[in-house]
């Protein structure tokens, strides 16, 4: 694992090699992932890698090149390519990139756990063994994934920015039950692997899989629903892209375009991007080195802000500045996005209290394959998966068949009646590409009119 000093040195050399206006971001990763299926180990992966992104800015155009070595030759080659593509774009006239951000000091955080960073890869097998022991005790088949990673990052720019950051993350999720029968799901994500009790998570999943009785079919209808934190997080993660991308907002494509200052959710809904909220996965700065700061997105049900990178802020005009939400140096075409969503908790003690006033409704553990149908209206579709129950007379009455749901996320938040007090972190990344752990901190909630559109 490369040290922060090594990465900062590489970033400095990348900036020097680029000459002119440039930013370099060096990221080192060490991660381990191990999986179970049908109560047997399947795959185990140990990854060490590093990448240096060099952004050159020429006449308002950006060129981004990525090197996977820290030696001078690799950095020089990447810098040359970044320069060449930015210069080639300049032949078409000046571009609209406003320039690199001024240096600013980022605050520290508690998102690094030294013990997790130092984990031996063989530790993964021990964690899976603990989960297996739980499944053998219960006589229930288990599929599971345990993963932990450490990511160190350094950013330097021609404007004098120099900063480093180090984060860790760990996640365990379990799916219990036979392939052809009702299954249960449970998962936990944390900064440190030591904070996750693998056996307890497996036990929770097994409990959900072991509910007695035949699943009850729920017809296509609008039902009152209690959504567990995993289901809420899936919806909010998608809402983040549909509603708070400052670039889409500025272009009139966003779900909140023209709606800031208006009520878009129930008064009990306060959603923010809060990078240092207890239980989240903090980080110090974004991909352009801009310090991250908390931003209210929906406050007491009223739409407040969207998030920006350097490019989207310039597009938005009105003197707006980056809010520290760049996902790529120079800004991604897809736009900036919140990565530390926090939905404030409500007054309910637990999920049972949420279910208590429900005469007949659904409890949903998680949602799957959610995708926008009409993003501007936050209309999404997806299916329930592994842990859907019928609520009758205020209590969980037994398992329910899975269903397809097609509903608007903002409508659901407008119809939210109550939330549990204590939110928890739900990991919302599957680690495609370089490791970048993020998640949503949210409680369970109860909402009316949940739109079930098909039985599954």
């Amino acid at each position, binding site marked *: 694992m490369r040290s922060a000093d090594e990465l900062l040195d590489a970033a400095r050399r990348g900036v020097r090699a680029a000459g002119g206006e440039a930013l370099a971001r060096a990221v080192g990763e060490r991660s381990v992932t191990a999986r179970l*299926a049908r109560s047997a180990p399947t795959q185990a*992966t140990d990854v060490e890698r590093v990448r240096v992104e060099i952004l050159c800015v020429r006449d308002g155009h950006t060129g981004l090149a990525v090197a996977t070595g820290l030696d001078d030759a690799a950095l020089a080659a990447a810098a040359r390519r*970044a320069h060449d593509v930015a210069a080639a774009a300049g032949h078409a006239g000046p571009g609209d990139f406003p320039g690199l951000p001024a240096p600013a000091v980022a605050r520290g955080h508690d998102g690094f756990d030294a013990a997790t960073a130092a984990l031996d890869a063989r530790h*993964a097998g021990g964690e899976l063994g603990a989960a297996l022991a739980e499944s053998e005790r219960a006589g229930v088949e288990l599929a599971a994934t345990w993963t932990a990673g450490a990511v160190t990052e350094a950013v330097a720019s021609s404007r004098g920015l120099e900063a480093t950051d180090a984060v860790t993350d760990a996640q365990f999720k379990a799916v219990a039950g036979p392939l052809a029968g009702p299954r249960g799901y449970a998962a936990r994500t944390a900064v440190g692997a030591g904070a996750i009790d693998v056996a307890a998570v497996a036990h929770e999943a097994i409990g959900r899989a072991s509910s007695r009785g035949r699943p009850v079919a729920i017809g296509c209808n609008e039902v009152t629903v209690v959504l567990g934190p995993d289901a809420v997080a899936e919806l909010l993660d998608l809402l983040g892209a549909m509603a708070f991308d400052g670039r889409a907002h500025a272009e009139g494509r966003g779900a909140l375009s023209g709606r800031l200052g208006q009520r878009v959710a129930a008064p009990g809904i306060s959603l923010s991007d809060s990078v240092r909220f207890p239980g989240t996965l903090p980080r110090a700065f974004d991909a352009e080195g801009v310090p991250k700061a908390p931003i209210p997105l929906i406050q007491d049900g009223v739409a407040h802000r969207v998030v920006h990178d350097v490019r989207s802020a310039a597009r938005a005009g009105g003197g707006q500045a980056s809010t520290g939400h760049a996902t790529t140096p120079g800004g991604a075409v897809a736009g900036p996005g919140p990565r530390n969503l926090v939905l404030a908790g409500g007054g309910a003690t637990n999920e049972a209290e949420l279910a208590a006033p429900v005469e007949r409704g659904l409890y949903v553990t998680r949602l799957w394959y959610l995708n926008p149908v009409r993003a501007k209206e936050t209309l999404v579709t997806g299916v329930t998966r592994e842990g859907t129950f019928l609520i009758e007379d205020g209590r969980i009455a037994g398992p329910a068949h899975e269903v397809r749901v097609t509903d608007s996320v903002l409508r659901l938040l407008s119809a939210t009646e109550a939330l549990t007090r204590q939110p928890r972190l739900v990991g919302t990344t599957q680690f495609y590409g370089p490791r970048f752990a993020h998640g949503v901190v949210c409680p369970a909630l109860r909402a009316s009119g949940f739109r079930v559109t098909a039985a*599954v």
Partner: protein
Amino acid sequence: MLDALVDLMDAAASRCAYADARWVDRSRESASVVDGAIEAIGVSDEEGIGVRVRVDGAWGFAATQDVSRAGLEGGLRRALALAEGQPRRPGAAPLAPVGPARGSWEGPCAVDPFGVSLEEKLGLLLAADEAMAGDARIARRRASTVAERTVKAFASTDGAACEQAFTECGGAIVAVAVEGGELQVRSFPSAHDGDVAQAGWEHVRALDLPGHGARVADEAVALLSAPPCPAGPTTVVLGSEQVALQLHESIGHALELDRMLGSEAAYAGTSWVAPDDVGSLRYGSDALNVVADATLPGGLGTYGWDDEGVPARRFRLVEGGRLVATLSSRETAGATGLGGSGGAMRADGFARQPLVRMTNVSLEPGDGGTLEDLVSGVDEGLYLETNRSWSIDDRRLHFQFATELTREIRGGELGGLRRNAVYAGVTPRFWASLDAVGSAEAWRVHGLLNCGKGEPGQLAHVSHGTAPARFVGVDVRTAE
């Protein structure tokens, strides 16, 4: 590099039941013009080695960017340690046998995309962007290209020692129109990053992105004021790109043998199809013939050998509506008693271990003629084109898809635009409603870059050959 991998495998042979090592060097260039501005020109090079070992039935995989001989040995040691630390797996079936992969293979490339000047590429994108400009209701225009070259070397303790080279190119244009609360989008030649093929820059030139810009923008604007799609069961003709997505989601993934065996239950899911269903399950109508073809010219799932050294094959998955085979690996083939792997193991770069992935899963041409011929047989129905939204359950059984464009069909002819169509179904019932498949002249290959699976996540590149197809009694809804 191949010699070093072979030496590493010699060193590994006495330390585990099986090992393989894969060196991957991948270069990528992407460029976008958004609303007339050149942005997001990116280039990357990534080189590294992945070493995979099997010890007492448990796998260990380690990835490193240190490609020295010492780095390779370090990777092997890490993979062994990881495998040895896994819970024991007594009784795991041996891998299905395969002859040693030897030699080299290279995909087609007439015009080296990395030899084409950036000026030419940007000129093409600016022209395509300009062709979409003009109407104030267009909130965003985007034109993009991508080029990728991957060079691989592979060796295993079963005697494999082979090298391969792949070149992929593609492009796309997208126009987003907004008026009031309504947003409509049109893409060409397809959604999902456009049409990418295993080919050189000649493929991008042939797409003629500027030539389609005005139509794409006009259609996006016209959809803003189109009537909502009528709801109810009806006859539907799907454009070939939407057939490709339908095939991908409800047949390709469902027939991955690792999913069928439960290996992906913790993330991607399982399958409604069981291994025992092969040979007897009716998957669809007699018109349904599906082939897995890793030899398809230009396909993104085309190669000499998969990432276990199994040679590329072409074989039927579904014949006359009946399931006849699955997509398999050496491990899944061994576990189910197949004589050999179907050669469908692939990995995303050096830092991921191979998984069962689709090769080019294609719907074979039928005798339905052209799109116009298929439409001419419909008295009243809908034509749906270009995917906009997609969702399917974790068993690949219940799906709901939406398309960008809908046209009414009346009296055997395409009529006016309709917007916000959604259709839903259950996989075997939907494919049982397949009434006709377009003929060879309407059949074309569609490339996708965003097929996700695995933990840590992997994106696979895969193509599907399809023609427009007609389905009866489809559950169509409106998303309004």
